[in-house]
């Protein structure tokens, strides 16, 4: 049978640090509190959902590599460490790491560029390396020493599912023993304003989600990943509606005891292609972004984590994950009981 086992999950989200916090927030289903971001140059505020400080400082944050890293590196490492810890890794296992981002390290990028504009001669060499998309993967590899191979993919939220497929290929081929896929994002006012230009109703969220895949179920598999659909790109003459319909047709029709984990946000224009693709879904639905905000690639990671967690908890037999990204692709995945 074609299946890859989900061995561990991790999440850092506006609900808090850890999968239990995410689970509880989604169970309540109430939108998490908003934070107002001051926009220094314009009085109109921007709203975001940010990760709260951890109740106790996780041990991995004491690692020298994370002491001055940007928060996206800390979120990514937090989700990765939780997922790897849950995966029950045996000694000597080789981990393949795929980190997925859309906006990436925006905080340090903006800080560094501000310094460049003030005086390029004195811009901080400590900030610049943290602006690189590959920085979070490097930090994760520092705290998860079993990482033997790594890559970073950039794109719209569907990129997280492309990352899942890449990691699944790696473990299937035996290139690595476990695949660790991490989606992460952070926010700042520049980033939020850029998003505001694309849709005034968008509320961004920060954090990370992580999934560990393996060919073997391990001692306590969370779920089985049974499909990642093709990517349905937005091309000339083939828009988000076409792509969403293509993705939907690639996944099973569903049943009353199956869950649909959507990427909708309660924004009519943005959500329409995805809503129309799933009008005939017969089972219950879960909409993590309405609780957590739009975490971009991290948001897609939370969807997958929530789907796997729902299957593992016995709430459903299977779950389809639907990601209709903002500017690249529609892509879906399916998880079932292990």
């Amino acid at each position: 049978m074609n299946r890859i086992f989900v061995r561990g999950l991790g999440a850092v989200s506006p609900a808090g640090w850890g999968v239990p916090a995410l689970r509880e927030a989604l169970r309540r289903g109430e939108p998490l509190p908003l934070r107002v971001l001051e926009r220094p140059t314009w009085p109109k505020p921007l709203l975001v959902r940010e990760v709260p400080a951890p109740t106790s400082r996780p041990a991995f944050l004491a690692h020298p590599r994370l002491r001055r890293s940007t928060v996206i590196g800390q979120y990514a490492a937090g989700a990765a460490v939780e997922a790897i810890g849950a995966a029950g890794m045996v000694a000597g296992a080789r981990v393949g790491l795929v980190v997925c981002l859309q906006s990436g390290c925006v905080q340090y990028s903006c800080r560094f560029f501000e310094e460049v504009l003030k005086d390029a001669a004195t811009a901080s060499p400590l900030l610049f390396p943290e602006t690189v998309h590959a920085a979070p993967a490097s930090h994760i590899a520092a705290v998860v020493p079993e990482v033997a191979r790594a890559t970073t993919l950039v794109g719209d939220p569907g990129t997280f599912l492309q990352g899942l497929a890449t990691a699944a290929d790696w473990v299937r081929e035996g290139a690595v023993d476990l695949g660790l896929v991490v989606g992460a994002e952070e926010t700042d006012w520049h980033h939020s304003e850029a998003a505001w230009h694309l849709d005034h109703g968008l509320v961004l969220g920060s954090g990370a989600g992580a999934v560990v895949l393996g060919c073997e179920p391990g001692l306590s598999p969370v779920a089985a990943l049974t499909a990642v659909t093709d990517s349905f790109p937005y091309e000339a003459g083939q828009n988000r509606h076409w792509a969403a319909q293509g993705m939907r047709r690639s996944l099973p029709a569903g049943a009353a005891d199956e869950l649909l984990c959507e990427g909708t946000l309660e924004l009519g224009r943005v959500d329409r292609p995805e809503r129309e693709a799933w009008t005939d879904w017969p089972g219950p639905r879960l909409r993590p972004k309405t609780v957590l905000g739009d975490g971009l690639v991290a948001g897609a990671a939370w969807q997958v984590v929530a789907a796997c967690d729902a299957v593992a908890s016995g709430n459903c037999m299977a779950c389809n994950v639907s990601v209709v990204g903002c500017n690249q692709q529609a892509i879906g995945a399916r998880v079932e009981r292990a």
Partner: protein
Amino acid sequence: MLFLPPQRSAEPPRVVVTGAGIVTALGIGWQDNAEGFRSGRTAFGPVTLFDVSRQRVKTAAQVRLPDHLPPTRLGPRQVARLDRAAKMLLLATREAWTQCGWEPGVEAPFVVGTTAGGMALGEDLFLQMTQTPGRHHLQATRALHYQPQVQARSVACALGFRGPITIVSTACASGADALGQAWESLRRGHATRALAGGYDALCRLVFAGFDSLQALSPTTCRPFDAARDGLALGEGAAVLALETLDSAKRRDATILAEIIGYGSAIDRYHLTQPHPQGEAALAAMTRACATAGLGPESIDYLNAHGTGTPLNDSAEATAIHRWAGAHEANLPVSSTKAGIGHLLGAAGAVEAVACLMALRGGWLPPEPAFATPDAACAFPVVREPRAATIQTALSNSFGFGGVNAVLILRRWA
């Protein structure tokens, strides 16, 4: 389904190159670049794209873009949205696309490496936000089009090919990693054709970043020279049309070369510095050779990552020494960064095309400024233009963040 490959034979298909496009400061297209690499021409000059008056270093290898892009399927408004980086990607992809002769509308995954995407547009977005807040003219366009997946989508629309887009961002290994991931994808049977490569344009943030690290050479970029004092930045793009050998033969296509090996490893030592013993570089070269089914003695030319920084070159030289063993003394090595600078996300793809040119042209790209070998270099660095029949070339690409990617190309006879 992406991770459920179709039924395929036990042996993965061979993957060949049937098109190549390149844009560097040496010129636009194969001919100018091949002549430049063959003769060891350098293309550095004062930076004119942005203000560098407060920078320690004020030179780079800038691309001279044509005043008008060649006609494509894009309308004037779409063309107007393309920034410098997207134009380079379009020019390189168009050359590869034209050369491979694929039919319009073909399904071909587009795997692109970049570090900065449309960062210049991102800088404009930032400047308008902070300097004229409340003025929103063109901000939505900038917010959308600085994203690399949107730039890649524009290129696919311009040329009329279809398929999924994957953006690989493993810093200076991005271009090689993109080619390697596309190569793996074809061997898995996910597709029979793919376009893959890398691109990056010079921009203020990245230039200032390398300057802040004091990584830029205030004199001349001299990879592996004992007196080397840093790297030089450049810009450009390169794209290869990859397809399975069966597909190329069915079409009776001209085959430029075969990609036979790819290896990747992660260096956990430091965010920006390589392990002094070149552990990950050694692992990546070893893995690439394993996938190619070759030993180091079968490699006829090594295109080094060779940035010209003291730490990178000594670590790479150590890794080559450990990997090549006795073959090292007979292995010609050079870094084409000596002529065109470090192209960051484009570097690995451009250097793969340089290897392709060397394989087809029968020459080795020299480093004219190289004078005195570093103590760690026991291999011969190519100093002067010379003819050589090479069957197999290996190209190293190492990135910030530690991803090391290695490609092996074989001459198609």
